[in-house]
């Protein structure tokens, strides 16, 4: 009797395992078919194989980039600085713009939940889901060429991430400090200033520095659509087919981002 129960249990376990295995196999099969289909459509059918030619000609094409135009470097310092400044200003403006979004988007302090909360969430998603190139195109059309559309694009693009993380931090705060300030007779603004802000400021600063680091990367390409900085130089080098110059610009971007990464690492360490 006991043996029979054991036996049936073992059988059930084995059956569920083989069931799980079968399901996994189906999922992998579907994934594999998707890959095969995608490769067929995007890579095999769509590619102009004659233009690419043989493997050696690809290497030859790619080899044009493996040289550095050192004479370009002195001319890169100013655009690199410009890129950095655009990233800084864009991030600052983004932080300023995202303050109301944070306020509306944190469920526990939002002023009028049925309307302001979804509004802020929509703002966050929109800001994150529209690519910086698209934002830049929009602002170039609105304010003309120059650094300004780049700054505005970066600011709009940063709102979402900073606001999302900060609003989540506010939702997780310790409510005792809020109650203490309220018990002392503090108004709404005082609660924000003395109970909520001190608790979430490290998070906001940390996420801002993180976003700043990403924004350097973004501001380096906004020149492609009409904002200044390294992107513009990249675009010019590309259009004059000066491939070693392109490599130099990419190298300059890498150095700039490395500096940004080191700075952001240490400043985040000192904040948190």
């Amino acid at each position, binding site marked *: 009797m006991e043996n029979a129960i054991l036996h049936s249990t073992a059988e059930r376990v084995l059956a569920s395992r083989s069931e799980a295995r079968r399901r996994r196999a189906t999922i992998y099969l579907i994934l594999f078919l998707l890959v095969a289909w995608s490769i067929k459509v995007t890579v095999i059918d769509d590619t102009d194989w004659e233009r690419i030619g043989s493997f050696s000609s690809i290497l030859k094409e790619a080899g044009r980039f493996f040289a550095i135009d050192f004479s370009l470097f002195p001319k890169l310092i100013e655009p690199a600085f410009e890129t950095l*400044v655009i990233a800084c200003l864009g991030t600052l403006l983004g932080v300023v713009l995202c303050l109301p979004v944070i306020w509306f988007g944190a469920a526990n302090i939002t002023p009028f939940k049925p309307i302001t909360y979804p509004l802020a969430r929509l703002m966050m998603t929109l800001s994150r889901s529209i690519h910086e190139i698209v934002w830049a195109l929009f602002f170039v059309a609105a304010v003309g060429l120059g650094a300004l559309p780049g700054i505005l694009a970066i600011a709009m693009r940063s709102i979402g991430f900073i606001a999302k993380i900060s609003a989540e931090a506010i939702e997780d705060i310790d409510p005792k400090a809020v109650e203490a300030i309220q018990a002392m007779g503090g108004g709404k603004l005082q609660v924000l200033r003395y109970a909520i802000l001190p608790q979430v400021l490290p998070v906001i600063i940390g996420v801002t520095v993180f976003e700043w680091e990403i924004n350097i990367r973004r501001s380096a390409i906004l020149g492609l659509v009409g904002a200044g900085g390294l992107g513009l130089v990249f675009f010019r080098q590309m259009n004059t087919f000066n491939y070693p110059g392109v490599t130099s610009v990419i190298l300059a971007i890498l150095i700039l981002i490395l500096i940004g990464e080191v700075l952001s690492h240490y400043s985040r360490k000192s904040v948190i």
Partner: protein
Amino acid sequence: MNIPTTTAITGPPHWRRFRFPQSLYHFGALLGVLVFVVFAIDYLNIPLERLLTMFGRIGTQLTERYYPPDINYINDKDYFASVLDTMQMAYLGALFGLLASLLLGWFGAHNVTPSRRYVYPAARLITMICRAVHEMIWAILFVTILGFGMLPGVFALTFFCTGFAGKLLAEEVEAINMGPVEAMRATGANGLQTFVFGVFPQVRVAFTGIAIYTWDVAFRAATVVGFFGAGGMGWYLKRNVLQIESERVAAILFSIILLVLVSEIISAWARNRVAKMA
């Protein structure tokens, strides 16, 4: 009787959250930021008066040029095909990028890397380069090398996803519990065995989350890599921007935003489910 009650409510009149030395630092930091802003605005020659007229101009632009979006233009078989292409491009790019990031996450995590002196810095450097170079620059480079089409788009997205997922995965791997790994090493497992049976099971759930997120981000990038000739919807965008067909541009942007929103909702839902399974 009246006087003490009022002082109790208003409190001491000169209370400040920050006292003298600290308040000076805060003031100094604020001043520094303001000086920087003024300097930067001057340095970049930003025409501030344009900022004031910007809202009016955006308003007229939206109402006169971009409205109404030319929905008929995107309600078209070719356009739908390009949307599908974009999805496939993002899918392939994310897949290849994730495969590469598995390797980079292993080699680039300080605690399990095969060699801290050579492999670790190399893996970190590759991850950094992939991440630092923007996906648009990858797209332009591959278009120059391989010509127009979706292949350069797939390559660009692969590099982008490699950097993106590689960094996240390396951070996850660095946070694992080393107990199982050491136990496996003690029984004589080699590097690959330790990674497959000791490290990967610990980060599997995190990796699934990263994978979903990567696909989402890759799709977002894929909608615009075509802007520089790498196929998909971006090519439609570029063409109409150049032809100043604003109503069509509006329709395309509208469709991009809609698709990205849908993909973000799906990804958030899927990541939630994965997190719950853990």
